[in-house]
């Protein structure tokens, strides 16, 4: 496979991975206030996505894959709210370990990386167009 076509495969896989990352961010943000259904139970645990580089089986070009989503094992914040249905016997409610600030910066970074890959696709397409124009 020629180098210029390989760029589309590589950048495309990276865009897909960044899209997956954005999905996880939006899942975290959507559940930023999801407490447990049972009294004293654990609330929503933040998800973390990780990327890995691999090789595309069909074309043999380098790609990026979102391999796994793990859970953030950091501690939950406790809030004193005895009337809450999820409160434990001492009146504390466990809140999800989602920090909106971290999620927002994560989102920004994913969007920027997505843009960078998109401009690589455009760049490669431009280069290929110049090659085709040599035939005219």
């Amino acid at each position: 496979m020629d180098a210029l076509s390989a760029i589309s495969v590589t950048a495309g896989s990276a865009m897909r991975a960044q899209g997956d990352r954005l999905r996880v961010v939006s899942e975290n943000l959507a559940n930023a206030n999801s407490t447990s259904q049972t009294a004293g139970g654990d609330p929503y645990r933040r998800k973390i996505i990780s990327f890995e580089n691999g090789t595309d089986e069909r074309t043999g070009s380098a790609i990026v894959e979102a391999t796994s989503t793990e859970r953030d094992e950091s501690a939950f914040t406790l809030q004193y709210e005895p009337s809450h249905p999820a409160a434990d016997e001492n009146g504390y409610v466990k809140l999800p370990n989602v920090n909106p600030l971290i999620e927002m910066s994560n989102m920004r970074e994913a969007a920027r990386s997505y843009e960078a890959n998109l401009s690589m696709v455009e760049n490669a397409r431009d280069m290929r167009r110049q090659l085709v124009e040599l035939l005219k």
Partner: protein
Amino acid sequence: MNTESTSLFDLATKRLQWLSTRQKVVSENIANADVAEYQAKDIESFASYLNDTRASNALEEADVVEASVSWQSDMTGNNVVLEEQMMEANSNASQFKIAANLYRKAHEMIYTVAGRR
């Protein structure tokens, strides 16, 4: 028609090939900008690529090497600087344009000699 050891077409073709390989490597760096422990890559210089391929007629891919210029690595051990790579990509694209135009000019020279234009 070319009596010199390296023809204009040959040189332009190799330059285009080298630049597209380079663009591929840059694109891999950008794609892997968020992968833990990924080390930025580059390809051999054009001079060394020319040297390596002087003997063969087939169009070969340039060798991929570890990038020498990298400012720092982040906490995951990834040393891709996105800004640096984007600048590389843009400079590759414009150099590609120059090489493609060079090829076209060489073609036009042949046309001129053939009296078609």
